[in-house]
Protein backbone atom coordinates (compact mmCIF):
# COMPACT_ATOMS: atom_id res chain seq x y z
CA UNK A 1 0.00 0.00 0.00
CA UNK A 2 1.02 3.59 -0.63
CA UNK A 3 2.93 5.40 2.10
CA UNK A 4 1.38 8.80 1.47
CA UNK A 5 -0.64 10.27 4.35
CA UNK A 6 -4.40 10.24 3.96
CA UNK A 7 -5.09 13.82 2.88
CA UNK A 8 -6.55 15.98 0.13
CA UNK A 9 -3.00 16.91 -0.87
CA UNK A 10 -2.06 13.25 -1.39
CA UNK A 11 -5.36 12.69 -3.19
CA UNK A 12 -4.53 15.42 -5.69
CA UNK A 13 -1.06 13.93 -6.26
CA UNK A 14 -2.72 10.63 -7.17
CA UNK A 15 -5.02 12.46 -9.62
CA UNK A 16 -1.90 13.95 -11.24
CA UNK A 17 -0.71 10.37 -11.70
CA UNK A 18 -4.02 9.26 -13.20
CA UNK A 19 -5.24 7.36 -10.14
CA UNK A 20 -8.59 7.77 -8.43
CA UNK A 21 -7.96 6.96 -4.78
CA UNK A 22 -10.29 6.74 -1.83
CA UNK A 23 -9.68 5.74 1.75
CA UNK A 24 -10.76 2.49 3.38
CA UNK A 25 -11.48 2.15 7.09
CA UNK A 26 -9.29 -0.55 8.65
CA UNK A 27 -11.90 -1.02 11.34
CA UNK A 28 -15.08 -1.61 9.37
CA UNK A 29 -13.93 -1.71 5.73
CA UNK A 30 -16.05 1.23 4.55
CA UNK A 31 -14.67 2.96 1.45
CA UNK A 32 -14.72 6.73 1.17
CA UNK A 33 -14.22 9.15 -1.69
CA UNK A 34 -12.85 11.77 -1.37
CA UNK A 35 -10.61 10.18 1.29
CA UNK A 36 -11.65 10.79 4.88
CA UNK A 37 -9.27 10.98 7.83
CA UNK A 38 -11.80 9.44 10.19
CA UNK A 39 -14.55 6.89 9.66
CA UNK A 40 -18.00 8.36 10.14
CA UNK A 41 -19.56 4.91 10.62
CA UNK A 42 -17.39 3.24 13.27
CA UNK A 43 -15.36 6.37 14.19
CA UNK A 44 -12.24 4.31 13.46
CA UNK A 45 -9.09 6.38 13.05
CA UNK A 46 -7.00 4.00 10.92
CA UNK A 47 -7.42 4.48 7.19
CA UNK A 48 -5.61 3.02 4.19
CA UNK A 49 -5.61 4.01 0.51
CA UNK A 50 -7.97 2.16 -1.77
CA UNK A 51 -7.84 2.53 -5.55
CA UNK A 52 -11.22 3.00 -7.18
CA UNK A 53 -12.03 1.60 -10.61
CA UNK A 54 -13.42 4.89 -11.90
CA UNK A 55 -16.62 3.28 -13.20
CA UNK A 56 -20.07 4.40 -12.23
CA UNK A 57 -23.24 6.13 -13.28
CA UNK A 58 -24.33 9.73 -13.55
CA UNK A 59 -26.47 10.59 -10.51
CA UNK A 60 -27.20 14.24 -11.27
CA UNK A 61 -25.68 17.09 -13.27
CA UNK A 62 -25.93 20.71 -14.32
CA UNK A 63 -24.70 22.67 -17.33
CA UNK A 64 -22.98 25.91 -16.38
CA UNK A 65 -23.61 28.95 -18.60
CA UNK A 66 -22.47 31.67 -16.20
CA UNK A 67 -18.96 30.42 -15.54
CA UNK A 68 -16.37 31.19 -12.85
CA UNK A 69 -13.13 32.94 -13.91
CA UNK A 70 -11.02 29.76 -13.83
CA UNK A 71 -13.38 28.05 -16.29
CA UNK A 72 -13.56 31.14 -18.52
CA UNK A 73 -9.78 30.77 -18.85
CA UNK A 74 -10.41 27.39 -20.47
CA UNK A 75 -12.72 29.05 -23.00
CA UNK A 76 -16.08 28.31 -21.39
CA UNK A 77 -18.87 30.88 -21.23
CA UNK A 78 -22.49 31.66 -22.14
CA UNK A 79 -22.05 30.40 -25.70
CA UNK A 80 -19.89 27.46 -24.66
CA UNK A 81 -21.27 25.92 -21.45
CA UNK A 82 -19.80 22.88 -19.70
CA UNK A 83 -21.38 20.03 -17.79
CA UNK A 84 -20.49 19.05 -14.24
CA UNK A 85 -22.17 16.52 -12.03
CA UNK A 86 -22.20 13.80 -9.42
CA UNK A 87 -21.17 10.24 -10.26
CA UNK A 88 -21.94 7.24 -8.07
CA UNK A 89 -19.02 4.82 -8.35
CA UNK A 90 -19.51 1.06 -8.60
CA UNK A 91 -17.80 0.77 -5.18
CA UNK A 92 -20.47 3.03 -3.63
CA UNK A 93 -18.88 6.42 -2.94
CA UNK A 94 -19.72 9.46 -5.02
CA UNK A 95 -17.52 11.82 -6.99
CA UNK A 96 -18.20 15.43 -7.94
CA UNK A 97 -16.51 16.00 -11.33
CA UNK A 98 -16.79 17.48 -14.77
CA UNK A 99 -18.78 15.43 -17.28
CA UNK A 100 -17.35 15.44 -20.79
CA UNK A 101 -18.40 13.92 -24.09
CA UNK A 102 -21.97 15.18 -23.60
CA UNK A 103 -23.77 18.08 -25.30
CA UNK A 104 -23.76 20.79 -22.62
CA UNK A 105 -25.57 23.18 -24.97
CA UNK A 106 -28.44 20.73 -24.99
CA UNK A 107 -28.76 19.83 -21.30
CA UNK A 108 -31.96 17.85 -21.70
CA UNK A 109 -30.09 15.35 -23.89
CA UNK A 110 -27.97 14.29 -20.88
CA UNK A 111 -29.35 11.26 -19.08
CA UNK A 112 -29.26 10.64 -15.35
CA UNK A 113 -28.31 7.00 -14.81
CA UNK A 114 -26.03 6.71 -17.84
CA UNK A 115 -22.83 4.67 -17.31
CA UNK A 116 -19.66 6.79 -17.14
CA UNK A 117 -15.94 6.18 -16.83
CA UNK A 118 -13.17 8.34 -15.32
CA UNK A 119 -10.64 10.12 -17.52
CA UNK A 120 -7.64 12.16 -16.42
CA UNK A 121 -7.13 15.27 -18.53
CA UNK A 122 -3.88 17.18 -18.74
CA UNK A 123 -4.32 20.95 -19.22
CA UNK A 124 -2.07 24.02 -19.13
CA UNK A 125 1.62 24.25 -19.78
CA UNK A 126 4.83 24.53 -17.75
CA UNK A 127 4.22 25.57 -14.14
CA UNK A 128 0.48 25.78 -14.76
CA UNK A 129 0.19 22.22 -16.08
CA UNK A 130 -2.24 20.10 -14.09
CA UNK A 131 -4.43 17.05 -14.38
CA UNK A 132 -8.12 17.12 -13.64
CA UNK A 133 -10.57 14.30 -13.19
CA UNK A 134 -13.59 14.05 -15.48
CA UNK A 135 -16.08 11.39 -16.48
CA UNK A 136 -17.24 10.44 -19.98
CA UNK A 137 -20.03 8.20 -21.18
CA UNK A 138 -18.72 4.61 -20.92
Amino acid at each position, binding site marked *: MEERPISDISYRKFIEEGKLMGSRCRGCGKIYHPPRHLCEDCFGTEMEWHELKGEGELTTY*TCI*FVVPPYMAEEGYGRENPYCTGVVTLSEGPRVVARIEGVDAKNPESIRIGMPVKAVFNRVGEGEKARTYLAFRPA
Partner: protein
Amino acid sequence: MAGKRKIGRGVAIVGAGMSRFGMFQDKDSKDLFAEAFRELLESVDKGLDPRDIQAIWIGNFSNDFFVHQAHWGPIIADLTGLAPRAVTRTEGACASSTLAVRDGIMAIASGMYDIVLAGGVEEMSKRTTEEVTEGLALATSPYEGAAGFTFPGVFGALANAYFHKYGASREHLMNVTIKSHENAPLNPKGQFRQTIRDLMEARKEKARQKGLPVPDWSDEKEALFDPSFNPPVAWPMHLFDCCPISDGASCVLLVAEELAKSFTDDPIYVVGFGQGSGRGLHACPSFTSFEANRQAAAEAYGMSGLKPEDVQFAEVHDCFSIAELIHIEDLGFFGEGEAYKAVAEGETRREGRMPINTSGGLKCKGHPVGATGVAQMYEVWKQLRGEAGERQIPGRDLYIGATQNLGGTGGTCTFTIFERR
Protein backbone atom coordinates in the same frame (compact mmCIF):
# COMPACT_ATOMS: atom_id res chain seq x y z
CA MET B 1 -29.18 14.07 18.20
CA ALA B 2 -32.52 15.75 17.87
CA GLY B 3 -34.58 15.28 20.97
CA LYS B 4 -37.22 17.08 22.90
CA ARG B 5 -34.84 19.50 24.51
CA LYS B 6 -36.41 22.60 26.01
CA ILE B 7 -34.77 25.89 26.80
CA GLY B 8 -34.57 26.78 30.47
CA ARG B 9 -36.21 30.18 30.13
CA GLY B 10 -38.57 31.46 27.47
CA VAL B 11 -37.55 34.19 25.04
CA ALA B 12 -39.66 36.65 23.06
CA ILE B 13 -39.16 39.17 20.28
CA VAL B 14 -40.48 42.58 21.32
CA GLY B 15 -39.07 44.76 18.55
CA ALA B 16 -37.85 44.39 14.96
CA GLY B 17 -36.38 46.49 12.20
CA MET B 18 -35.22 46.03 8.64
CA SER B 19 -33.56 48.38 6.17
CA ARG B 20 -34.68 48.69 2.58
CA PHE B 21 -33.06 45.88 0.60
CA GLY B 22 -31.48 46.64 -2.76
CA MET B 23 -28.27 47.67 -4.47
CA PHE B 24 -27.19 50.96 -2.94
CA GLN B 25 -24.13 52.77 -4.22
CA ASP B 26 -24.78 55.56 -1.72
CA LYS B 27 -25.27 53.48 1.46
CA ASP B 28 -22.81 51.32 3.37
CA SER B 29 -23.25 48.65 6.05
CA LYS B 30 -23.39 51.20 8.87
CA ASP B 31 -26.06 53.26 7.10
CA LEU B 32 -28.11 50.12 6.52
CA PHE B 33 -27.82 48.81 10.08
CA ALA B 34 -28.67 52.26 11.46
CA GLU B 35 -31.80 52.26 9.30
CA ALA B 36 -32.86 48.86 10.68
CA PHE B 37 -32.01 49.76 14.29
CA ARG B 38 -33.94 53.04 14.10
CA GLU B 39 -37.04 51.12 13.06
CA LEU B 40 -36.48 48.58 15.84
CA LEU B 41 -36.39 51.36 18.46
CA GLU B 42 -39.68 52.74 17.17
CA SER B 43 -41.26 49.29 16.99
CA VAL B 44 -41.13 48.61 20.74
CA ASP B 45 -44.73 49.46 21.69
CA LYS B 46 -44.06 50.58 25.26
CA GLY B 47 -40.67 52.06 24.46
CA LEU B 48 -37.10 50.90 24.91
CA ASP B 49 -34.22 52.64 26.59
CA PRO B 50 -31.33 51.38 24.40
CA ARG B 51 -29.10 51.53 27.48
CA ASP B 52 -30.99 48.48 28.76
CA ILE B 53 -29.61 46.30 25.94
CA GLN B 54 -26.94 44.10 27.52
CA ALA B 55 -25.23 42.38 24.60
CA ILE B 56 -25.27 42.08 20.80
CA TRP B 57 -24.96 39.25 18.32
CA ILE B 58 -24.43 40.23 14.69
CA GLY B 59 -24.47 37.91 11.68
CA ASN B 60 -22.25 38.69 8.75
CA PHE B 61 -21.02 36.25 6.13
CA SER B 62 -18.26 37.97 4.25
CA ASN B 63 -18.06 41.74 4.36
CA ASP B 64 -14.37 40.88 4.71
CA PHE B 65 -14.46 39.90 1.04
CA PHE B 66 -17.23 42.19 -0.20
CA VAL B 67 -16.00 45.50 1.27
CA HIS B 68 -12.61 44.46 2.66
CA GLN B 69 -13.50 45.09 6.28
CA ALA B 70 -13.66 42.36 8.92
CA HIS B 71 -14.52 42.37 12.64
CA TRP B 72 -18.03 43.80 12.26
CA GLY B 73 -19.07 43.21 15.87
CA PRO B 74 -17.43 46.27 17.43
CA ILE B 75 -18.41 48.45 14.46
CA ILE B 76 -22.07 47.66 15.12
CA ALA B 77 -21.70 48.08 18.90
CA ASP B 78 -20.19 51.50 18.32
CA LEU B 79 -22.78 52.48 15.70
CA THR B 80 -25.70 51.68 18.02
CA GLY B 81 -24.09 53.48 20.96
CA LEU B 82 -23.85 50.18 22.86
CA ALA B 83 -20.06 49.92 23.17
CA PRO B 84 -18.38 48.71 25.39
CA ARG B 85 -21.02 46.00 25.80
CA ALA B 86 -20.15 42.52 24.54
CA VAL B 87 -20.68 41.90 20.84
CA THR B 88 -20.16 38.67 18.93
CA ARG B 89 -20.16 38.10 15.19
CA THR B 90 -21.65 34.85 13.90
CA GLU B 91 -20.90 33.28 10.51
CA GLY B 92 -22.96 30.56 8.88
CA ALA B 93 -22.86 31.84 5.29
CA CYS B 94 -26.41 32.90 4.30
CA ALA B 95 -27.70 31.71 7.69
CA SER B 96 -25.36 33.97 9.68
CA SER B 97 -28.01 36.15 11.32
CA THR B 98 -30.21 33.24 12.40
CA LEU B 99 -27.14 31.97 14.25
CA ALA B 100 -26.92 35.40 15.91
CA VAL B 101 -30.51 35.09 17.12
CA ARG B 102 -29.93 31.50 18.24
CA ASP B 103 -26.94 32.55 20.32
CA GLY B 104 -28.91 35.47 21.74
CA ILE B 105 -31.76 33.15 22.71
CA MET B 106 -29.38 30.75 24.42
CA ALA B 107 -27.66 33.59 26.27
CA ILE B 108 -31.00 34.77 27.66
CA ALA B 109 -32.18 31.22 28.38
CA SER B 110 -28.98 30.59 30.33
CA GLY B 111 -29.68 33.55 32.60
CA MET B 112 -26.58 35.40 31.43
CA TYR B 113 -28.59 38.29 29.94
CA ASP B 114 -32.20 39.52 29.86
CA ILE B 115 -32.18 41.87 26.86
CA VAL B 116 -30.21 41.19 23.68
CA LEU B 117 -29.96 42.82 20.25
CA ALA B 118 -29.49 40.33 17.40
CA GLY B 119 -29.23 41.13 13.73
CA GLY B 120 -27.29 40.88 10.53
CA VAL B 121 -25.81 42.93 7.74
CA GLU B 122 -24.24 42.39 4.31
CA GLU B 123 -23.05 44.82 1.67
CA MET B 124 -22.51 43.02 -1.62
CA SER B 125 -23.27 45.35 -4.50
CA LYS B 126 -20.03 47.32 -4.48
CA ARG B 127 -18.48 44.27 -6.16
CA THR B 128 -19.04 43.08 -9.73
CA THR B 129 -21.34 40.12 -10.35
CA GLU B 130 -18.30 37.93 -11.12
CA GLU B 131 -16.65 38.93 -7.85
CA VAL B 132 -19.82 38.31 -5.84
CA THR B 133 -20.15 34.90 -7.49
CA GLU B 134 -16.58 34.15 -6.44
CA GLY B 135 -17.27 35.44 -2.91
CA LEU B 136 -20.38 33.30 -2.50
CA ALA B 137 -18.55 30.25 -3.88
CA LEU B 138 -16.32 30.48 -0.80
CA ALA B 139 -19.28 28.93 1.03
CA THR B 140 -19.52 25.78 -1.12
CA SER B 141 -17.68 22.54 -0.33
CA PRO B 142 -14.05 22.65 -1.52
CA TYR B 143 -14.57 19.62 -3.78
CA GLU B 144 -17.30 21.35 -5.76
CA GLY B 145 -15.25 24.32 -6.94
CA ALA B 146 -12.58 21.94 -8.24
CA ALA B 147 -15.21 20.31 -10.46
CA GLY B 148 -16.40 23.64 -11.90
CA PHE B 149 -19.53 23.82 -9.75
CA THR B 150 -20.89 27.28 -9.03
CA PHE B 151 -23.51 28.16 -6.40
CA PRO B 152 -26.36 28.09 -8.93
CA GLY B 153 -24.75 24.94 -10.34
CA VAL B 154 -25.23 23.01 -7.10
CA PHE B 155 -28.91 23.96 -7.05
CA GLY B 156 -29.16 23.13 -10.77
CA ALA B 157 -27.92 19.62 -9.97
CA LEU B 158 -30.50 19.33 -7.16
CA ALA B 159 -33.23 20.49 -9.55
CA ASN B 160 -32.30 17.86 -12.14
CA ALA B 161 -32.34 15.19 -9.43
CA TYR B 162 -35.78 16.42 -8.28
CA PHE B 163 -37.11 16.43 -11.85
CA HIS B 164 -35.77 12.92 -12.45
CA LYS B 165 -37.17 11.50 -9.21
CA TYR B 166 -40.62 13.10 -9.21
CA GLY B 167 -41.37 14.00 -12.83
CA ALA B 168 -41.39 17.76 -12.20
CA SER B 169 -40.12 20.20 -14.84
CA ARG B 170 -38.94 23.76 -15.34
CA GLU B 171 -42.55 24.87 -15.49
CA HIS B 172 -42.96 23.88 -11.84
CA LEU B 173 -40.00 26.03 -10.84
CA MET B 174 -41.64 28.91 -12.72
CA ASN B 175 -44.70 28.57 -10.49
CA VAL B 176 -42.48 29.34 -7.49
CA THR B 177 -41.02 32.42 -9.17
CA ILE B 178 -44.38 33.72 -10.39
CA LYS B 179 -45.86 33.30 -6.89
CA SER B 180 -42.97 35.17 -5.22
CA HIS B 181 -43.29 38.00 -7.73
CA GLU B 182 -47.03 38.24 -6.99
CA ASN B 183 -46.10 39.21 -3.42
CA ALA B 184 -43.29 41.54 -4.51
CA PRO B 185 -45.29 44.72 -5.22
CA LEU B 186 -46.76 44.51 -1.71
CA ASN B 187 -43.42 44.74 0.12
CA PRO B 188 -42.25 48.37 0.30
CA LYS B 189 -38.78 47.32 1.52
CA GLY B 190 -38.14 44.79 -1.25
CA GLN B 191 -35.51 45.01 -3.98
CA PHE B 192 -37.84 43.99 -6.83
CA ARG B 193 -41.41 45.25 -6.64
CA GLN B 194 -42.79 44.05 -9.95
CA THR B 195 -44.76 40.99 -10.95
CA ILE B 196 -43.48 38.87 -13.85
CA ARG B 197 -46.29 40.38 -15.92
CA ASP B 198 -45.07 43.92 -15.04
CA LEU B 199 -41.57 42.94 -16.12
CA MET B 200 -42.86 41.48 -19.40
CA GLU B 201 -44.73 44.70 -20.19
CA ALA B 202 -41.65 46.75 -19.36
CA ARG B 203 -39.59 44.62 -21.74
CA LYS B 204 -42.16 45.04 -24.50
CA GLU B 205 -42.24 48.81 -23.98
CA LYS B 206 -38.45 48.97 -24.18
CA ALA B 207 -38.51 47.03 -27.46
CA ARG B 208 -41.17 49.41 -28.83
CA GLN B 209 -39.14 52.47 -27.89
CA LYS B 210 -36.02 51.04 -29.51
CA GLY B 211 -37.93 50.04 -32.64
CA LEU B 212 -37.05 46.37 -32.06
CA PRO B 213 -39.43 43.44 -32.60
CA VAL B 214 -41.91 43.35 -29.70
CA PRO B 215 -42.14 39.91 -28.02
CA ASP B 216 -45.61 38.35 -28.29
CA TRP B 217 -45.59 36.28 -25.09
CA SER B 218 -49.11 35.15 -24.21
CA ASP B 219 -48.42 34.52 -20.53
CA GLU B 220 -45.71 34.53 -17.86
CA LYS B 221 -44.45 31.05 -18.65
CA GLU B 222 -44.01 31.79 -22.32
CA ALA B 223 -41.79 34.72 -21.34
CA LEU B 224 -39.90 32.62 -18.81
CA PHE B 225 -39.24 29.95 -21.46
CA ASP B 226 -37.78 32.65 -23.75
CA PRO B 227 -33.98 32.73 -23.21
CA SER B 228 -33.86 36.39 -24.28
CA PHE B 229 -36.01 37.19 -21.21
CA ASN B 230 -34.78 34.41 -18.93
CA PRO B 231 -31.31 33.17 -19.92
CA PRO B 232 -29.79 29.97 -18.50
CA VAL B 233 -27.35 30.31 -15.59
CA ALA B 234 -26.76 26.69 -14.53
CA TRP B 235 -29.27 24.41 -16.20
CA PRO B 236 -32.09 24.14 -15.24
CA MET B 237 -31.51 27.29 -13.13
CA HIS B 238 -32.25 30.37 -15.20
CA LEU B 239 -32.01 34.05 -14.27
CA PHE B 240 -35.52 34.08 -12.76
CA ASP B 241 -34.74 31.04 -10.62
CA CYS B 242 -31.98 32.96 -8.82
CA CYS B 243 -32.12 35.58 -6.07
CA PRO B 244 -30.32 38.89 -6.67
CA ILE B 245 -27.20 40.49 -5.22
CA SER B 246 -28.26 42.80 -2.40
CA ASP B 247 -27.31 45.13 0.42
CA GLY B 248 -29.29 45.29 3.64
CA ALA B 249 -29.54 44.93 7.40
CA SER B 250 -32.05 43.60 9.90
CA CYS B 251 -32.38 43.25 13.67
CA VAL B 252 -34.65 42.02 16.45
CA LEU B 253 -34.84 42.71 20.17
CA LEU B 254 -34.84 39.51 22.24
CA VAL B 255 -35.95 39.58 25.87
CA ALA B 256 -36.62 37.08 28.63
CA GLU B 257 -40.21 35.90 28.52
CA GLU B 258 -41.07 37.34 31.95
CA LEU B 259 -40.05 40.83 30.78
CA ALA B 260 -41.83 40.70 27.43
CA LYS B 261 -45.09 42.33 28.53
CA SER B 262 -43.23 45.32 29.90
CA PHE B 263 -42.19 46.12 26.32
CA THR B 264 -45.38 45.27 24.44
CA ASP B 265 -48.79 43.69 24.92
CA ASP B 266 -48.11 41.74 21.74
CA PRO B 267 -44.76 39.90 21.98
CA ILE B 268 -43.84 37.09 19.62
CA TYR B 269 -42.47 34.08 21.51
CA VAL B 270 -39.72 31.81 20.21
CA VAL B 271 -41.17 28.36 20.85
CA GLY B 272 -38.74 26.15 18.95
CA PHE B 273 -35.43 26.43 17.19
CA GLY B 274 -33.12 23.98 15.53
CA GLN B 275 -29.93 23.94 13.53
CA GLY B 276 -28.22 21.28 11.46
CA SER B 277 -25.09 20.82 9.39
CA GLY B 278 -24.73 19.33 5.93
CA ARG B 279 -21.91 18.02 3.77
CA GLY B 280 -20.69 18.46 0.23
CA LEU B 281 -22.63 17.05 -2.72
CA HIS B 282 -20.47 13.90 -2.78
CA ALA B 283 -21.65 13.01 0.73
CA CYS B 284 -25.31 14.07 0.52
CA PRO B 285 -27.55 11.13 1.38
CA SER B 286 -30.19 12.63 -0.92
CA PHE B 287 -30.26 15.21 -3.72
CA THR B 288 -33.89 16.09 -3.08
CA SER B 289 -33.52 16.97 0.60
CA PHE B 290 -31.08 18.78 2.89
CA GLU B 291 -30.04 16.63 5.84
CA ALA B 292 -29.33 19.83 7.80
CA ASN B 293 -32.98 20.86 7.32
CA ARG B 294 -34.23 17.55 8.68
CA GLN B 295 -32.02 17.92 11.74
CA ALA B 296 -33.11 21.53 12.34
CA ALA B 297 -36.79 20.70 11.87
CA ALA B 298 -36.66 17.70 14.23
CA GLU B 299 -35.09 19.89 16.93
CA ALA B 300 -37.52 22.77 16.52
CA TYR B 301 -40.63 20.59 16.36
CA GLY B 302 -39.38 18.55 19.31
CA MET B 303 -38.73 21.64 21.42
CA SER B 304 -42.06 23.28 20.61
CA GLY B 305 -44.21 20.18 20.72
CA LEU B 306 -45.71 21.42 17.45
CA LYS B 307 -46.21 19.54 14.20
CA PRO B 308 -45.78 20.78 10.63
CA GLU B 309 -49.56 21.16 10.28
CA ASP B 310 -49.59 23.58 13.23
CA VAL B 311 -47.43 26.07 11.32
CA GLN B 312 -49.73 28.50 9.49
CA PHE B 313 -47.19 30.23 7.23
CA ALA B 314 -43.43 30.39 6.75
CA GLU B 315 -40.57 32.28 5.24
CA VAL B 316 -38.13 29.81 3.63
CA HIS B 317 -34.75 30.27 2.02
CA ASP B 318 -35.53 30.50 -1.71
CA CYS B 319 -32.03 31.45 -2.84
CA PHE B 320 -32.99 29.38 -5.89
CA SER B 321 -36.50 28.32 -6.88
CA ILE B 322 -35.76 24.61 -6.41
CA ALA B 323 -34.65 25.29 -2.82
CA GLU B 324 -38.17 26.48 -1.89
CA LEU B 325 -39.66 23.17 -3.09
CA ILE B 326 -37.10 21.11 -1.18
CA HIS B 327 -37.46 23.14 2.03
CA ILE B 328 -41.23 22.92 2.25
CA GLU B 329 -40.96 19.15 1.88
CA ASP B 330 -38.09 18.84 4.40
CA LEU B 331 -40.08 20.86 6.94
CA GLY B 332 -43.05 18.55 6.51
CA PHE B 333 -45.46 21.16 5.12
CA PHE B 334 -45.88 18.94 2.05
CA GLY B 335 -45.06 15.29 1.41
CA GLU B 336 -41.93 14.23 -0.48
CA GLY B 337 -42.42 14.90 -4.17
CA GLU B 338 -45.66 16.78 -3.46
CA ALA B 339 -44.46 20.39 -3.15
CA TYR B 340 -44.31 21.09 -6.86
CA LYS B 341 -47.92 19.98 -7.28
CA ALA B 342 -49.08 22.04 -4.27
CA VAL B 343 -47.35 25.16 -5.61
CA ALA B 344 -48.97 24.59 -9.02
CA GLU B 345 -52.35 24.51 -7.28
CA GLY B 346 -51.69 27.82 -5.54
CA GLU B 347 -51.43 26.41 -2.02
CA THR B 348 -48.37 28.55 -1.20
CA ARG B 349 -49.88 31.84 -2.38
CA ARG B 350 -50.92 34.42 0.22
CA GLU B 351 -54.50 33.24 0.14
CA GLY B 352 -53.51 29.56 -0.16
CA ARG B 353 -53.57 26.85 2.50
CA MET B 354 -49.89 27.37 3.44
CA PRO B 355 -48.56 30.81 2.46
CA ILE B 356 -44.81 30.70 1.76
CA ASN B 357 -42.63 33.81 1.45
CA THR B 358 -45.29 36.50 1.70
CA SER B 359 -42.38 38.96 1.77
CA GLY B 360 -41.58 38.05 -1.83
CA GLY B 361 -38.83 35.76 -0.58
CA LEU B 362 -35.16 36.16 -1.26
CA LYS B 363 -36.00 36.19 -4.96
CA CYS B 364 -37.85 39.53 -4.80
CA LYS B 365 -37.15 41.02 -1.38
CA GLY B 366 -33.41 40.57 -1.95
CA HIS B 367 -30.71 38.51 -0.26
CA PRO B 368 -28.02 40.47 1.60
CA VAL B 369 -26.82 37.14 2.93
CA GLY B 370 -25.88 38.05 6.51
CA ALA B 371 -29.16 39.93 7.02
CA THR B 372 -31.53 37.38 5.50
CA GLY B 373 -32.36 35.13 8.46
CA VAL B 374 -33.44 38.02 10.68
CA ALA B 375 -35.26 39.67 7.76
CA GLN B 376 -37.32 36.46 7.52
CA MET B 377 -38.14 36.84 11.23
CA TYR B 378 -39.10 40.47 10.59
CA GLU B 379 -41.74 39.24 8.13
CA VAL B 380 -43.09 36.68 10.61
CA TRP B 381 -43.18 39.38 13.34
CA LYS B 382 -45.18 41.66 11.00
CA GLN B 383 -47.58 38.94 9.89
CA LEU B 384 -48.24 37.56 13.39
CA ARG B 385 -48.96 41.05 14.71
CA GLY B 386 -51.24 41.88 11.78
CA GLU B 387 -48.91 44.68 10.66
CA ALA B 388 -47.96 43.38 7.20
CA GLY B 389 -50.13 45.94 5.42
CA GLU B 390 -51.17 45.04 1.89
CA ARG B 391 -49.41 41.69 2.03
CA GLN B 392 -51.09 40.60 5.28
CA ILE B 393 -52.25 37.00 4.91
CA PRO B 394 -56.00 37.43 4.46
CA GLY B 395 -58.91 35.89 6.27
CA ARG B 396 -57.33 34.11 9.21
CA ASP B 397 -56.17 34.59 12.74
CA LEU B 398 -52.41 33.98 12.74
CA TYR B 399 -50.65 32.63 15.78
CA ILE B 400 -47.86 30.26 14.55
CA GLY B 401 -45.26 31.24 11.92
CA ALA B 402 -41.78 29.93 11.12
CA THR B 403 -38.53 30.77 9.35
CA GLN B 404 -36.12 28.43 7.60
CA ASN B 405 -32.68 29.75 6.71
CA LEU B 406 -29.99 27.96 4.68
CA GLY B 407 -26.28 28.69 4.56
CA GLY B 408 -24.03 27.81 1.63
CA THR B 409 -25.34 24.86 -0.31
CA GLY B 410 -26.98 23.34 2.75
CA GLY B 411 -23.93 23.27 5.04
CA THR B 412 -25.96 25.13 7.66
CA CYS B 413 -29.75 25.04 8.01
CA THR B 414 -31.95 26.47 10.72
CA PHE B 415 -35.64 26.29 11.53
CA THR B 416 -37.29 28.61 14.04
CA ILE B 417 -40.92 28.61 15.15
CA PHE B 418 -42.67 31.67 16.58
CA GLU B 419 -45.94 32.00 18.47
CA ARG B 420 -48.28 34.84 19.22
CA ARG B 421 -50.27 34.10 22.37
